[in-house]
C-alpha cells in the first residue's frame, strides 16, 4: 500500500531534509497530529481526516514549481524544481495549507501551483496523465487568485461529476497573463471533457464567449514551446496572443 508514497518520495529528495527540519519545531503538536503530516518521517504515513473534520472524496497534494527563465527545462530539472508542499484529506486540512500559502496572484516570476490527487504527479509522464489532457483558460492579470480558488474548491467538492477522471489543477503565473488548467485522465473521452468544460464555465462564472482550449498531453509533448520542456504547462508559454481571456 505504500507504493504511491514511495514513488513520490523519489522526486522530492531535495525537499525532504528541509521538511524534517521544519517538523522538529513542533514536537508537541506532532504527536497529536502525526497522521496529518505526510512529510514527517521517511516512511510517509497516510493522511486521514481528523476527528470531526469533513473528509474529501480524495486526498490531494499541493505542489509548487518555479522555473528560471531562459534555462532549458529537462525532465531532471523539472523534477528538481517542483516541490511538494503537503497532502490533505479533509476540508479543514485543505484550509490549513491554503491559508498559509501566498495566493497565486502574489507569486512572482514563472511559477505554478499544482493541486493533484495524492499519488498523481503533476507531470505528463505519470500513468494517470499520460493519456490525458487539460482545459486551459487564460486570464488577464489580477484574476488568478479568485479563479484558482474557485477552481480548486470545485475540484475538492467533486463538482465536476466525472467519476475518477479529474487528476488535478494548475495555476501558472506568467509575465503578461496567468493560466489556470484542469487535467483529466482520458483526453479521448469527449463526454467527460465536455462536462468538465461546462462545469468550469459554471464554477468560474465564465461568460459564454470565453475561449477555452483543450490540449492533450500528447500534443504538449510533441509540440513543445520554445525553451520549454513542458512537463509543467507548455502551452502556456507560447502563443500568448491566442485566446487570451479578458473578462
Amino acid at each position, binding site marked *: 500500500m505504500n507504493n504511491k508514497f514511495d514513488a513520490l518520495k523519489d522526486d522530492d529528495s531535495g525537499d525532504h531534509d528541509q521538511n524534517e527540519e*521544519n517538523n522538529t519545531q513542533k514536537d508537541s503538536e506532532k504527536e497529536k497530529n502525526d497522521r496529518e503530516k505526510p512529510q514527517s518521517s521517511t516512511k510517509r504515513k497516510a493522511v486521514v481526516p481528523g476527528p470531526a473534520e*469533513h473528509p474529501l472524496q480524495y486526498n490531494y497534494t499541493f505542489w509548487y514549481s518555479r522555473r528560471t527563465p531562459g534555462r532549458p527545462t529537462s525532465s531532471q530539472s523539472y523534477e528538481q524544481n517542483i516541490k511538494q*508542499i503537503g497532502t490533505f484529506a479533509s476540508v479543514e486540512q485543505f484550509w490549513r495549507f491554503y491559508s498559509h500559502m501566498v495566493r497565486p496572484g502574489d507569486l512572482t516570476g514563472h511559477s505554478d501551483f499544482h493541486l493533484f490527487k495524492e499519488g498523481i504527479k503533476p507531470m505528463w509522464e505519470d500513468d494517470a496523465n499520460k493519456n490525458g489532457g487539460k482545459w486551459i483558460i487564460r486570464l488577464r492579470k489580477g484574476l488568478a487568485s479568485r479563479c484558482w480558488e474557485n477552481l480548486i*474548491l470545485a475540484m475538492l467538492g467533486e463538482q465536476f461529476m466525472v467519476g475518477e477522471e479529474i487528476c488535478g489543477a494548475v495555476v501558472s503565473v506568467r509575465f503578461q497573463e496567468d493560466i489556470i488548467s484542469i487535467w483529466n485522465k482520458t483526453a479521448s473521452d469527449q463526454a467527460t471533457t465536455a462536462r468538465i468544460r461546462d462545469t468550469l464555465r*459554471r464554477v468560474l462564472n465564465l461568460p459564454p464567449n470565453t475561449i477555452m482550449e483543450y490540449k492533450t498531453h500528447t500534443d504538449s509533448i510533441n509540440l513543445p514551446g520554445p525553451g520549454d520542456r513542458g512537463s509543467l504547462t507548455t502551452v502556456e508559454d507560447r502563443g500568448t496572443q491566442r485566446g487570451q481571456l479578458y473578462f
Partner: protein
Amino acid sequence: MSGRCCPGQTPSRDIPGPGKRLALPDGAPLPPGAYSTTPGGTVFGTTPGGTRIIYDRKFLMECRNSPVAKTPPDLPDIPGVTSPNVEESKIENNHVQNYEKVSVGEEEQFDMDI
C-alpha cells in the same frame, strides 16, 4: 465524404444536476464511515461514477474559519510561497479581508443554487 447525414453528430444533453445539498452549521461533526448520512456534504449512491462526497463552494468557505483550518501546518520553507512564521498573521489578515470582500461583493453569483 462518406457520410451523408451528419453521422458523427450526437445531440447534446444536459448534465444531470448535482441534486440537493444540505447546509450545515460550522463544525458539525461527521459520523465516520456513515457516508450515507453525511451532514456536511451530499452523497449520492447513484451519481455517475458512484458515491461521492460532494461539497459546494459555500460550505467549503464556511469551513475556512474552523480552528483546525487556522492551525499552521508544517510547510516546506519556500521563500515567497509559504510563510510559516514571519508573515503568518499578515497573510491571515489578507485572507479574511479578501474573503469578506468577495462574499459581500462581486461573487454573489456563486450563492445561486444549481
